[in-house]
């Protein structure tokens, strides 16, 4: 039943050696509760993979499985081609950057960073040098003798990353590392983290519920829901071509319309929705007349009719407007009561001073329309 899921892509065909991490058929259940359901996922060497999903989707459990903090009920974890499924947590070298940072409060910054090296026999000079390297990399040199309680949130995070990198791992696991930071710091850390990953050219396995973080940093985004992988793809794949209802609703600002296929020709498919007829491009997925489908239209692909090409259009009433930076978000309502979101650059909008409660025509290009099959029965 799970294997028949059409959207679990396993497109990587590279030989195992070029993979830092392979997850093969990972299942985990607590009693009857499926926490991880047939997870298959590869992380190429040097790849930045973001695991995204709502809380409780199993993303953190997956991270803990890789680190060895949780066991699996079934399946294998391969690190650089070596099966580590049965290896205890302390023998894996899969360091984790914790959401809470989990720094050792009784040690200072230097001792925290050195911790992983002091557990086995290391020459003192070497430990010092590696700590120094990690500190330079993360701009921590002036803080090395500080106590942990004297650090700010951003500094603590850099210590947590330095501490994880000091043992020179092939892969770094990050568990929502930004969630404890101030919003302005988050944006800056995103850039720094990406640069760090590229400079080190190691893989990052980054768990988050924040799509901005996932999209801005990751080479590959994995969307999870209810213990299953919904879609794997590049950020633009996920954003522009959501493969499931869940992804379409969870990611981006998509408008969804339920409808029925009424006509198919070699270029377009006509769908009848409560809001009127909508055309979608004919892509490789086969559809039949009479089939129930969902039409997905990204909010930033819609325009208010007078300013754009009219290929698909619907009527809606403007209910509210919100300015976010250079963008304006319009909240509209159709005659059937469905809420629609529309995003425009502010410059486009300045000439168009639409009053609230005005009836508007929204339009978008046929090629921006995404078609999904009927909502599967077990989806939420």
């Amino acid at each position, binding site marked *: 039943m799970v294997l028949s899921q059409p959207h679990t892509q396993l497109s990587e065909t590279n030989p195992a050696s070029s993979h830092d991490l392979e997850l093969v058929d990972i299942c985990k259940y607590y009693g009857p509760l499926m926490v991880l359901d047939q997870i298959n996922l590869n992380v190429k060497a040097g790849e930045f993979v973001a695991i995204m999903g709502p809380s409780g989707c199993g993303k953190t459990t997956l991270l803990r499985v890789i*680190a060895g*903090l949780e066991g699996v009920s079934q399946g294998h974890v391969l690190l650089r081609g070596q099966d580590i499924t049965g290896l205890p*947590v*302390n*023998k894996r*070298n*899969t*360091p*984790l950057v*914790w959401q*809470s940072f*989990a*720094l*050792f*409060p*009784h040690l200072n910054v230097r001792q925290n960073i050195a*911790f*992983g090296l002091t*557990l*086995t026999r290391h020459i003192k000079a070497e430990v010092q040098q590696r700590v120094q390297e990690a500190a330079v990399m993360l701009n921590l040199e002036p803080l090395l003798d500080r106590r942990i*309680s004297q650090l700010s949130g951003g500094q603590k995070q850099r210590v947590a990353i330095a*501490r*994880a990198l000091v*043992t020179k791992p092939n892969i770094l696991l990050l568990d929502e590392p930004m969630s404890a930071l101030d919003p302005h710091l988050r944006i800056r850390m995103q850039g720094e983290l990406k640069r760090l990953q590229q400079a080190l050219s190691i893989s990052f396995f980054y768990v988050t519920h924040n799509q901005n973080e996932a999209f801005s940093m990751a080479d590959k985004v994995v969307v999870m829901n209810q213990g299953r992988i919904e879609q794997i793809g590049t950020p633009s794949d996920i954003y522009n071509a959501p493969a499931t209802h869940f992804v379409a609703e969870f990611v981006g600002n998509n408008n969804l319309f339920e409808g029925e296929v009424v006509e198919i020709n070699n270029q377009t498919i006509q769908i009848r929705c409560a809001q009127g007829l909508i055309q979608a491009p004919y892509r490789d997925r086969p559809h039949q007349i009479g089939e129930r489908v969902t039409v997905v239209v990204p909010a930033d692909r819609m325009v208010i009719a007078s300013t754009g090409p009219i290929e698909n259009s619907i009527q809606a009433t403007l209910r509210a407007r919100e300015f976010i930076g250079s963008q304006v978000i319009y909240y509209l309502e159709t005659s059937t009561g469905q809420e629609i979101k529309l995003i425009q650059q502010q410059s486009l909008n300045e000439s168009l001073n639409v009053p609230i409660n005005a009836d508007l025509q929204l339009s978008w290009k046929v090629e921006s329309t995404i078609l999904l099959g009927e909502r599967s029965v077990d989806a939420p």
Partner: protein
Amino acid sequence: MAIQKKQGSDRLLALAGWAYLLLGFGFLLLPIFALVLFSFEDSRLPTLPWTGWTLKWYNFLLSDGRLLEALKNSLIVSPLAAAAATVIGFFAAYALNRFEFWGKKFLSILLIVPILIPPLIMGVAFLGLLSRVNLQGQLLSVFLTHVVILIPTAIALITIRLAQMPSDIEQAAWNLGASEWQALFRVVLPWSIPGIAGAWLLSFTFSFDEFVIAWFVSGFQPTLPVAIYSFMAFNLDPSLNAIGTIIFALSILLLVGVELLLIPLLLENRSNSKQA
């Protein structure tokens, strides 16, 4: 006018509060003050008028070897019993904090039981048990019984500290390559130090003061409280005041030690929670 009146009644109330406090503390501390004072009184009778200062009662105590011997016994038994109880308490608290296992509830109740049983019953029971295995009447018997009664205190204090430890930091140690023992000694133990120190100090104080059980099991190697009791049975003179003064001074020293250790601990936690 009205405001002035209100201020006046407030001040009166504050004054009454202070007076109450002073009276309360005076009532509590006056006997001790009298005890300390009359340990330096020349006359045998602890009454006014003051007849003169002397140290002869202290001299008398020191020249009588029994009490010094008992003090020595106490200073051997109490630190060791406190240390043993603290070590056992640490591991028990760690296990109860970290693991879920069959019979955990039962075990945690069992560990508290020694505190609930009256010492008299405990003393009789221990004497019965120890005499069957020929361990009665020695310092070792006091040590063993004291370890048993001190464990609950030690567990309670160390558990409080362990419960505040973020579970992440132990897992972080494993994640960085530490074995369970390495994580225990290099992360959990340092974290628990304030709790451990507090547990040892409190256990030591309990053991040092403990009379009833020690009276049953100590036999010919009495601890200080037991020796004081037998001393009292024969001498009713100010040398008892002198003993009281010495014990009081020792207790104060210990109390100050505990506070110096525990208060920084509490303050540190408060600033931690403020940050969070």
